[in-house]
């Protein structure tokens, strides 16, 4: 895919416990910011893609495509997209397909979630809608499912609790530089290891939080005609040059291996091929660190390091700002927050800002190619995007 799909505008709310804002307030704030930044008018937005996972389950309110679009005064096509925690990435992927097909030229993609209005047990139950029936009957939760993957990794490769804690410490450091983050402060090794256990071997600080928030992008087709391949804009724009989705079993136990997320490999290889780049060309990445082991698995499955070495890769500081390959400069899901359907779009925004050299204290020097990695469930759905300036 050449430089056809431009990230024309971005909008992001603060992530956190935002009790004075409704789902619609959040979606509106992010969307209007993205439209304003794009320089387009409301009337030029032809379609709205709304990513949301659990609002219908928690509030009884569905039909979010039309509800969000109409609250913005948009009258064109509207869609609600659900793919568990990969809902945001999926919405971006589908929006891109609509632009490549030539159906629309300018679209809004907004991911929004309001999770802190209900008790934690209700959220844990609602999120398990992304798991399988047999997992729900076993009393499993997502922390427990990823804990099983972590224990398998520890057994096979000798990955340690400290390896995993390093992910949390690094991402909290990055979040301390991000005013939009839910937890903009640093944590220590002791804090991570000694916090309450949620599911062995994980403590609370191995897990991403329950969050409210919204993220929005305006995507524009830069095609002159259906037959054209690309246009130049003086190098000022950021383009999505690769977009791929891969699928695996929803049930973790049915997978060929507990030591990897195979759909990450499939989606990343497709996306890199579309973009015409290799993994070694990536200068900055936002990956799906819903739990600390997930970032270690992502490093291995995306090909940043060899299988079984993800813990050491993070421990060496390679993925910290200033390191060779900064990962999750936003603070990731762990510390920036994880309003589930907003996450995949927030990742696109963070990488876009990095490539536009507007990431402030979190700026990665020389960033010109970036990657985003958004996972649904334990890897039943994976979406990978490649962005280039």
């Amino acid at each position, binding site marked *: 895919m050449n430089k056809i799909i431009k990230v024309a505008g971005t909008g992001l709310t603060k992530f956190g416990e935002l009790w004075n804002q409704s789902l619609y307030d959040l979606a509106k704030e992010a969307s209007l910011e993205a439209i304003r930044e794009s320089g387009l008018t409301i009337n030029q937005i032809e379609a709205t893609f709304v990513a949301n996972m659990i609002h219908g389950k928690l509030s009884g309110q569905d039909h979010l495509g039309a509800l969000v679009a109409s609250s913005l005064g948009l009258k064109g096509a509207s869609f609600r997209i659900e793919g568990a925690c990969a809902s945001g990435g999926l919405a971006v992927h589908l929006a891109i397909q609509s632009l490549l097909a030539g159906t629309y030229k300018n679209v809004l993609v907004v991911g929004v979630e309001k999770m802190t209005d209900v008790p*934690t*047990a*209700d959220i*844990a*139950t609602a999120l*398990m809608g992304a798991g399988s029936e*047999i*997992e*729900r*009957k*076993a*009393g*499993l*939760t997502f*922390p*427990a499912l990823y*804990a*099983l993957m972590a*224990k*398998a990794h520890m*057994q096979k490769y000798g990955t340690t609790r400290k390896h995993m804690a390093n992910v949390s410490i690094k991402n909290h450091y990055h979040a301390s530089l991000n005013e939009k983050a839910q937890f903009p402060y640093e944590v220590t090794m002791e804090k991570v290891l000694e916090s*309450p*256990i*949620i*599911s*062995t*071997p994980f403590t609370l600080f191995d897990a991403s939080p329950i969050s409210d928030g919204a993220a929005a992008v305006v995507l524009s087709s830069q095609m002159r005609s259906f037959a054209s391949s690309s246009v130049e804009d003086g190098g000022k724009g950021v383009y999505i040059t690769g977009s791929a989705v891969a699928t695996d079993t929803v*049930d*973790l*136990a*049915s997978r060929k291996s*507990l030591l990897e997320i195979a759909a990450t490999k499939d989606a990343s290889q497709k996306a890199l091929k579309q973009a015409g780049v290799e993994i070694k060309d990536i200068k900055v990445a936002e990956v799906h660190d819903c739990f600390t082991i997930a970032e270690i698995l992502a490093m291995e499955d995306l090909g940043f390091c060899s299988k079984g070495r993800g813990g050491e890769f993070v421990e060496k500081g390679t993925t910290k700002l200033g390191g060779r390959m900064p990962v999750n400069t936003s603070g990731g899901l762990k510390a920036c927050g994880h309003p589930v359907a907003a996450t995949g779009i927030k990742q696109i925004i963070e990488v876009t800002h990095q490539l536009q050299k507007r990431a402030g204290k979190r700026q990665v020097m020389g960033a010109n190619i970036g990657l985003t990695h958004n996972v649904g469930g334990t890897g039943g759905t994976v979406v990978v995007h490649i962005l280039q300036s």
Partner: protein
Amino acid sequence: MNSPVTIWRDHKNLHNYLNKIGRVIVWTKILVPPTGFEHEAPYLVGIIQFSRERRPLQIVDCDEKDLKLNQKVITVIRKIGKAKSEDVIEYGVKVKPI
């Protein structure tokens, strides 16, 4: 919890999963449970390798300190979650060490 008709349908197949012997390939102890399992926490859940498949199942009648990798287990029928006083009680498959 599941509807009465779903429970009725699932119960008809329970016998297919009884007295199966497997081994525990990985497990976790859950301290923060989902709705309906609060009364059981903390509890153990493992991925159990059977001859033809792997399944995630609760491990009962066992302390974590006594559990070891490749522990042999057998399937048993137990209550799933906690039914309210007028709900249909749901049963399902769990494993216990042998």
